[in-house]
């Protein structure tokens, strides 16, 4: 079942990043919904693996997305869906039914995609702002993806319900940040699926240390957001990074609550 888990992980990422490559609209909304469904499948398969006294990992092959129009994307998406194979069982019947529905969706029109063009242009931003924006997005897209994997792994391995709820909130927050950063990267022509997260990052011995370090990282992320917001001469982007900066404050509160919940 670990192979099914890994293939589902890949499918989730391709659907999520594929969605963000499209201009915001009907197709991206639909694909983001599908990506969320894949993510839920992934958690259910992970839970099943743990129930069977197996563990799961976040190993996968490198994913390179380069499609230039929606027809190309849907061809790849459908071929991945057709390649999925599941054993019998209620969970897998549900997953199969979801994927059959996804297979029935065809693109209504062919949309040009520039998310992977590497053009690195964004409205009228100057070169210095573009480079700062690119570096920020590159690092934060990886970081949010890493956080989703770390919190999902931790959530599926804890029996502490309070901790589990906090992890759930942190996952929602990171999914939102990831989506938002990916849409900006897409406009910049610099969208890419992040690199594989190594086991040493999510299979840690000490959750407390991880959370304490995480709080430090959130503080740094706040500073980066603040710096970027003042550097970039674009009102919309500056407002957005200020908004993200404020969200980080509550992440710190959630992580502090998680630290307290460990001892309960």
């Amino acid at each position: 079942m670990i192979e099914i888990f890994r293939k589902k992980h890949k499918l989730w990422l391709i659907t999520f990043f594929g969605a963000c490559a499209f201009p915001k609209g009907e197709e991206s909304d639909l694909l983001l919904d599908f990506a969320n469904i894949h993510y839920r499948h992934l958690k259910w398969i992970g839970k099943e693996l743990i129930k069977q006294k197996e563990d799961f990992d976040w190993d996968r092959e490198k994913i390179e997305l380069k499609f230039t129009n929606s027809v190309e994307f849907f061809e790849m998406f459908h071929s991945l869906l057709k390649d999925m194979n599941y054993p019998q069982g209620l969970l897998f019947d549900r997953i199969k039914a979801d994927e059959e529905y996804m297979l029935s969706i065809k693109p209504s029109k062919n949309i040009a995609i520039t998310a992977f063009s590497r053009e690195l242009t964004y409205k009228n931003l100057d070169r210095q702002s573009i480079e700062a924006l690119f570096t920020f997005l590159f690092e934060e897209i990886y970081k949010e993806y890493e956080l989703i994997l770390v919190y999902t792994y931790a959530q599926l391995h804890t029996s502490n319900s309070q901790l589990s709820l906090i992890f759930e909130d942190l996952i929602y927050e990171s999914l939102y940040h990831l989506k938002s950063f990916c849409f900006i990267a897409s406009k910049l022509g610099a969208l890419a699926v992040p690199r594989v997260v190594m086991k040493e990052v999510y299979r840690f011995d000490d959750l407390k240390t991880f959370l304490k370090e995480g709080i430090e990282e959130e503080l740094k992320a706040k500073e980066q957001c603040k710096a970027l917001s003042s550097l970039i001469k674009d009102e919309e982007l500056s407002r957005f990074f200020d908004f993200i900066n404020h969200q980080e404050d509550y992440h710190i509160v959630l992580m502090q609550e998680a630290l307290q919940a460990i001892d309960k």
Partner: protein
Amino acid sequence: MDSKYIEMMLDPPNYGEMKQFSAKGIGKNKETGEMVIIYLKVDPSLEIVEDIKWQTNGCGTTIVSGGLFSQEYKGKSLKEGLDFTNAVFEKIKDNPPADAACGEVVARAFIAAVKDYEARKKGEEREFIEYVTLSCPPGEVNDRDISQKT
């Protein structure tokens, strides 16, 4: 920013895990939590790095350093690899600490991998971690020598 570096960030060369390796080393920066793992496949008779893989949770500069250094290490003998590492330390020691740390953490991982290789030759199996020291204030790192994770 050079387009070559942008590509290297988005698709770093030699990136990934090696399942069957001759040596594994970890470089860590205690201040930032950044970590680099290097896996080596070494030709036992010539002690040449036949293949190298590496992974990190680090920033863009660490990614570029990892990509460039891994290309340098590949095909070199372990001794030549260490010489290259020392040359890196010499070059970065006067850089601003934050910039120097990104290259240093990769080079430290290589040193740890070489120590692991030597230990394995003696039949020892343990995890080798080397900590960033050049770019951390003195006194911050106590265990700069090989440490063993339990």
